[in-house]
């Protein structure tokens, strides 16, 4: 699959693990967060859930995106965190 994300998702870091921030609409409960166990979750005041966690590579990233789609979630932001 092509890399649909822009340059901000350049996967070259020293440890080969990227830390990403993902924002989803709505405060997610336990039944949804169970699918993002590797991530730390925080609720924002404006009604979003902020997930921060490691994504090993492109394949893992595509997997997360598919999960988000499968669960009927709405993605509002995806960002690679600077080390």
């Amino acid at each position, binding site marked *: 699959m092509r890399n649909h994300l822009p340059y901000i998702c350049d996967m070259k870091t020293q440890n080969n693990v990227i830390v990403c921030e993902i924002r989803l609409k*709505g405060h997610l*409960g336990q039944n949804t967060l*169970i699918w993002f166990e590797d991530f730390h979750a925080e609720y924002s005041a404006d009604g979003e859930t902020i997930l921060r966690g490691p994504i090993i590579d492109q394949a893992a990233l595509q997997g997360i995106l598919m999960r988000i*789609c*499968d*669960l009927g979630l709405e993605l509002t932001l995806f960002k690679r965190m600077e080390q």
Partner: protein
Amino acid sequence: MVASILSTKLFIPSTPYGVIHRSPLIERLTAGLMTGNLLTLVSAPAGYGKTTLLAEWIAAYQGQIAWLSLDGRDNNPLRFWTYFVTALKSVSKPLGQVALQMLESAQETDFQIFLTELVNDIATLNHPVILVLDDYHVISHQSIHEGLTFLLEHLPPSLHLVIATRTDPPLPLSRLRVRRQLTEVRIADLRFTTDEASAFLNDLMNLNLNAIDIQALETRTEGWIAGLQLAALSMQGRADAHAFVRDFTGNQHFVLEYLVEEVLQRQPESLQHFLLETSILQRMSASLCNAVTESTNSADTLMDLRRRNLFVIPLDGEHYWFRYHHLFAEFLKSHLKRTRANDLPLLHRRAAEWFQANDHPEDALHHAFAIPDYTYVSQLVIDNWRRVYHTGRLDTAVQWLETLPGDLLRQSPPLGVAYCWTLFIRGNYDRIDSYLDDIEQAFDRMVSAGKLPIEHPEYNIILHQVILLRAVVMRHQGYVAAALKEIEQLLPNIVELRETLGQLYVDMGLTACYSQLGYTYAAANDFDKAGDYLSRVSPHARGCENYFSLAHVTMEWAKISLMQGRIDQAEKICRSELSLAEQLNYADYPAFCLIQLALADVLRVKKSWDEAESLLSQGLEVARKSGHEYYLAQGYLIAARLHHAQGEPTRAQEDIHKAEQIALSIHNRFLNYDIDQTRKETLKSKSLTAQPLIEPLSERELEVLRLICAGKSNLEIADELYLALNTIKRHTNHIYGKLGVSRRSQAIIEARRLGLV
């Protein structure tokens, strides 16, 4: 009782109970159709009523409709297009037959020829047809997108394509938009307006909400239909619906999760249990649900759920099988996992037992593996592998066995023997002996400890199978005479089994023994004896429903007959099995395609091109749908021979190349051998059938003749072909007779003159 896979894929959904009629949208869809748009795209995430909308639209449509529900396995070009044509055939029987034949000559990424033919076929339709592709988001194979793009660019007016999907497909949508050839329905269109929400909540669901509450709900859910449905379900029966609205709109929870939680909590406890417990099922029937939930009223419950629109979707016309709406099921599963994880094994166990008792071994094993309980899984595999194997679903049997812990295959005699058969059928002889050693030891241990389950038939035929398997390995290693002796000595032991185990096991044993004797005599080049034994297999194979062996034996026997020049016999064998297959309905089994392919090969020799092509095409279609690449590869080899005989050597080489590609990934030595044979035959400069002789030479005779022309002595020829010297002498006499010569040198001249070498 159970809908076949095909009928569920082509099943046209009907509109569920209580629907808000979306007239403006329906009108837009119809208008798009009228103005000759090429494509209608309905693209939105789950829960926006895509299928409901389409179902409503086509219910009112006067013309012909074909519906294809896609799933993950359709993400393969050959399979996708086969089902595409099958769906179209449901409205017009002859459509696509020729196109499917073209599919066989398609290169990996270029289906141009097939698509062109398909387009031509579609253009002959004398009435308009709508074809709906549902759940297109499961398709990610570039070649399929390209194929559809081509189709759209050349679409005849008689066909209108509708694609329903959760994600936009990579088709030239912008271009279609600009040219106004696209009807598009998206989230913004599908969202309920305030009026629609009001109609739904108050009129349909009888909730009596005021305008402010309705607006609040609409805003909170953003018109998401599934959300409003869940909210309505939450509010039904509540004294104070307003309180719900206040709480719901006052928080920021993820809508789906919050609402499903709410709805679930408000259901009677028994229904909650039902929903959670059945969430492990990929498909549900009333009887299955009773088993899993240990209740007796699942039929009523399912009916109730449907009536209340609690996301239960029928899978077939008889309303026997259902499934939950995907979003709902996901949530239920995680809820179950979080709150009742300890119950999961038991639930899966109940499901497995029901499926096993109702003749669905694959589903049974799916749940058994999920428990996981390897003792139970072993038992299921032992009880079911033969049946699956007999229909020719070799991959399934192999998968089951290879998913088990490795040492189980060496400690459990029935499992080990089963695995050895799968090794044999894939030509992996080298590993069989080591397994057999362990199996014999394990068996002896069980006997000494008095722990052999003698009431279980499989345990009573372990030693017989070990002997047969060892004989087969011996044959492979070249000890043909020894192999024959072993198997022949086994025969009376098999016949004896009638007393203790019944005719069924005698049939199984004789099928195996006669087949192996046939193959072994063939390996010894005693074709008469080979044919004799192979001819005895059929009644026994039918007796134990071993259609896999039957198909292989038929193919082999036809080959041998061809080699002996007995073309009519070869044809008769194949045709008789074909007609029986149709009567017994084992035409549904994958192995069956081997018989079609065998007959196609015979007809090639007879030069009945039309029928040969037709059978080849049918065989390949069955092979493609089965998903078993071994059959597909065999089909390509037959195609290679056919095309070579028709004077198309390039095409023949392409066919062989396709078979080679498959061989690389499936590690089946029989296939490799067949590929080599086919390559040898098709690289000959003249084809077999271009002989101007009154009585043509058989394949074997031609082989000998070529070696004669290459200057080899009879002894050298005997060596090279692994035949006896006398056999060679016999062949040369026949050859001289047919060529009308009496000396070797004359034979060479004549052969060259006639262009036989």
